[in-house]
Every structure is written in structure tokens, then in C-alpha cells.
């Protein structure tokens, strides 16, 4: 016995140490051009056992973070048979907050007494585990999880969701300080994942919504656009959605900046890549009713100018015909 845990412990610690230091190995073992978004993890995992360990650790942290936000109350999705049986999730049993958090289809892993066939064992389980009935379901302040996002991205710098969701949580502090910290956090992520569409989009989105700085946002969106074009053939569905967002926001930003040609170019490029995207179709055709008044005015001016131009052209054509 003496040797077994010793060996296991040693192996674990070695793997742990090596996993944490594996950043240095990435340049050697990763493909020359890391792919965008979540693919980075997958590629690394297949290339490196150490990377796998690191990825697993950060994934585990991700799950634990979710658990902490529910103060330890473990939730699970409803099964199909439970849905068919009319069972309701956490969100539907509480008034407003839970619905907002979209937990209609989850229940507590430890069932409530009326759903639990275990009798006394179930009572003991509920008494000793962090269990709350669905009607008492609540959430901890997500800001408590900020250090965990820092930790998981420290352990696995290619864990894109850690960077993006972490920045969103940091930005819950709506002061300038909060915004700056969120941007700083995303920039750290960008340094590790320079071609990540998700991180670039999140940065752009933060500049748009918090700082109203469309110029800087466009710089990030343009970088994101380069990634989207570069990896267009290998994007997964969720990444395609991210790439679609690039063109939507680029279109809107250029419109509000009054750069019509660039807007049309971006929207057209987006439509060529994602011809079924309804938002891009609308952008190509009419002014969206979002963003600033200035944007609206700019669009109206463009439309009027275009209409004038069209009228003038029609008149000229008619004149020529005559």
C-alpha cells in the first residue's frame, strides 16, 4: 500500500506542476496558427496530455463556479420523461428572478421530499447536503466568482469562456473602474488568444455598450473579422454565431460612424458568409432601431441622399431617353 498512493500522489503533483507550466510548451506542440474560439482547447487537448489536464481542471472550476453561484445547491436538467410528466424547473416555481436567469428546465439534483422515493435516506440527504427547495432557490452575487474566473483562466489561458464570461461578471460593476477592469481582463485573454473571435467580440461589445467608443470597437471587430474569414471553413456552429455577430456589429458601428461604404462592405461580406442571417438582411435593407440618435440621423441622411441620387439618376435616364 505504501507505494500506491505515493506513486499516484507524485504523478498527480507532477501532472499538476507540468500542466501549469504547459504554456511554455504550447508553442512547440500547438499547431502554428491556433484556431479561433473554443477550438483552441480542443486542439491543445489532442496535442498534449498536460494540456488535457489543465483543460479538465479549468472545466471543473467552471462547473464548481456554477455550483457556488447557487450556493452549493446542485441542479440538473429535467429529463425528457420528467418534462413529459409535467415537472417544472426551478425558474418556473419562483416569481421573477429565476425566470430571468433562465432556469425553467432545471431542478435540484437532490429531489424534494414529494419526488423522492428514498424516504428516510432522502431526508438525511436533504438535511446534510446544501439543499434548498425549488421555491427557495436563490443565487449568490456573481461578483464572488471573479477570483475563480481569474483562477480558471490562469490555469488554462485558452479557456475562452472563462475570459468572456469572467469579463461580463467583472463588468457587473458598472462604474468606470469595473469597465476598465473588464477590458483589462479581456486584453489579458486576447494576449493568450490573439485570434479568438469571442474575446475580440466581447472587447468590442464592452467598448460599444460601456464606453460608447465605436472607433476602438471597430478596431477589435476588424481583427475578429480577419479571424472569421481565416477560419470560415472550420468554424463550429457556436463559432459561426460569434462570427455572425462580428458582421452585425461592424455594420452597426460603421453606420453610426457614418462610414457607409465600409458598412455596406461589411454587411455584404457577412451576407456572403451567412446568407440566412436575418439581422444582416435587415441591416442591408433598412435602418435598425437601435443604437444612438446620431446613428438614426446618419442613416436617414444616407437614405435621403441615396433616394435623391436615385431620383436624379432616374430623371437623367428619362431625359436621355427623351
Amino acid at each position, binding site marked *: 500500500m505504501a507505494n500506491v*498512493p505515493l506513486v499516484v500522489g507524485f504523478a498527480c503533483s507532477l501532472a499538476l506542476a507540468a500542466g501549469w507550466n504547459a504554456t511554455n510548451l504550447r508553442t512547440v506542440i500547438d499547431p502554428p496558427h491556433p484556431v479561433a474560439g473554443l477550438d483552441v482547447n480542443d486542439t491543445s487537448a489532442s496535442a498534449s496530455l498536460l494540456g488535457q489536464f489543465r483543460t479538465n481542471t479549468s472545466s471543473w472550476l467552471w462547473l464548481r463556479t456554477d455550483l457556488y453561484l447557487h450556493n452549493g445547491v446542485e441542479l440538473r436538467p429535467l429529463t425528457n420523461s420528467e418534462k413529459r410528466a409535467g415537472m417544472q424547473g426551478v425558474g418556473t416555481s419562483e416569481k421573477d428572478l429565476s425566470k430571468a436567469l433562465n432556469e425553467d428546465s432545471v431542478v435540484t439534483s437532490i429531489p424534494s421530499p414529494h419526488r423522492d422515493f428514498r424516504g428516510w435516506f432522502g431526508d438525511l440527504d436533504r438535511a446534510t447536503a446544501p439543499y434548498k427547495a425549488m421555491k427557495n432557490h436563490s443565487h449568490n452575487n456573481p461578483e464572488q466568482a471573479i477570483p475563480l474566473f481569474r483562477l480558471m483562466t*490562469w490555469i488554462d489561458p485558452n479557456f475562452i469562456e472563462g475570459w468572456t464570461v469572467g469579463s461580463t461578471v467583472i463588468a457587473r460593476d458598472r462604474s468606470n473602474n469595473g469597465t476598465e477592469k473588464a477590458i483589462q481582463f479581456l486584453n489579458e485573454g486576447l494576449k493568450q488568444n490573439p485570434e479568438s473571435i469571442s474575446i475580440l467580440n466581447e472587447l468590442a461589445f464592452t467598448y460599444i455598450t460601456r464606453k460608447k467608443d465605436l472607433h476602438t470597437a471597430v478596431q477589435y471587430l476588424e481583427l475578429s473579422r480577419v479571424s472569421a474569414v481565416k477560419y470560415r471553413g472550420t468554424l463550429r456552429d457556436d463559432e459561426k454565431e460569434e462570427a455572425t455577430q462580428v458582421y452585425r456589429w461592424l455594420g452597426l458601428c460603421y453606420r453610426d460612424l457614418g462610414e457607409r461604404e465600409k458598412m455596406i462592405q461589411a454587411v455584404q461580406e457577412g451576407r456572403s458568409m451567412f446568407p440566412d442571417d436575418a439581422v444582416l438582411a435587415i441591416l442591408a435593407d433598412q435602418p435598425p432601431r437601435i443604437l444612438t440618435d446620431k446613428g438614426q440621423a446618419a442613416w436617414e441622411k444616407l437614405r435621403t441622399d441615396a433616394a435623391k441620387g436615385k431620383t436624379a439618376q432616374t430623371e437623367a435616364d428619362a431625359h436621355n431617353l427623351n
Partner: protein
Amino acid sequence: MKFRIYRALARAVVLESIRRKDLWVVAILGFLILLASGALGFFGVQGLQLFAKDLAASVLSLFSAVVAVLTSCRLLPEEIKQRTLYPLLARPISRLDLLIGKLLGAVIVTWIAFLMLCALTAVALTTFHVQFEPIMIQYIIIKMMGLVVLCALSLTFSAYMTPQAAATMSIILAFGSGVIVRGLIMAYNGVGPATQWIYKLIAAALPQLGVFDLGGRAANIGWSPVSGAVVLQLFLYMATYTGAMVLIAWAKFRRQAV
């Protein structure tokens, strides 16, 4: 008189374990905890208290279970293999006494290891500025009860199978019984009445080790210690399940040719 027998047997198990340096392994594992916490501390501890507590509870749970299983699984087979059983059984003690004494020894070794790990973990947690809470003491006490159940389970398996198989089964149940029960709960409504009874039997027979783990409550914020009535029920469950396990082991061992 009986207690004297149990004490003598248990003392031999503990002395052997200490001198064999089994507990050194625990010390090394504890050192790794300190090392890891030091690494996290270097990263920055602000706001990581909850995670540190949760990680500590998970690590304690894992390591103590491994120690419990590995200590208990080999006691009986090793006695038979090394033939140290003969001079023991030549004494005026029953085989049931022998099992109880051995189990007591395994439990004490496991408790020592667990408490050592707790002490080291406490040192690690102080670096994270984790505040002491009464539920932590309750966590330790109830966890120790759970380790008794796990030791008994492992000892029983070892009476029926090889130490390796017994260790595997014990580890599977230690970490998997909760998952199995959750699965049964999810599937329960979709099966017929006869199968539902089977589910109930399986759920009752599986060791409910999860109920002895207050780690979730201790780690997360605002959970109060469990009531005295619950502790009493846990104690009764521990006593009953352990007793049943020892009897099952005895059923095999009492007439086993050695």
C-alpha cells in the same frame, strides 16, 4: 474483556501502519496540499476562500477515502497470506472479535490520517484567510463517521474477493454510489412498479456515504450546522450499516478454512 481484545488488535494494526510508514504517504499528500495552496496563494487569495474551502473538502474526501479503503482492504487477506492469522486465531477469541478488532484498527489509522490531513488543510486554509466556522468541526466529526462505514465496506469486500478487487469495488462505491442513486432518482418515474421496488432496494443497500459529507455546506456560504437529531440519525445509520457489513464479512469468514 472484549474491549481489551479489540484494543489489542487495533493497537497492532495502528503500530504496524505507523511503522510501515503508511502515514508518511498521508504526510506527503498533505505536503502537496500545502504546496498547491501556496501556489494558489501566490496567485492571490482575495475572494478564493469559498473555492479553497470547497477544494479542501474535496481533497480531504478523496484522500481519506483512499486511505480508508487501502487500509481496510488488505487487513484480512494479508493476515491469511502471511499466516499471521494462525497465532491470533489460536487465542481464545472468536473470528467475529477478530474482525471487529481489525476494523477498529483500520478505523483508527484512517482517523489519524484524516485528522493529519485536516490539520495540514487547516494550515493551508489560514493562508486564504478562511475564518473558522462551527460547521467545520461538525464536518470533521460526521466525516469520521462516514469513514467508519467505508472501512467496514472495504473489510467486507476483502472477505469475499482479492484485495485489489475489494479496493476497486470500495472506491467505485465510495465515489459512485451517490451518482448511482441520483441516476435511480431520475429514472424512477419512468419504470414500472416492480422495477421501482428494485430501485428502492438498491438505494437502501448502497452505502449512503454522501450523507456523511458536510463539505458542501461547510464550503458554501450561510449554511448552518445540522441539528443534533440529524447527527444522531447519522450515528445510528453508521452503527447499523457497519454492523451489517461486519456480519456479512463474518458470514464468510467464520467458517472459512485458513
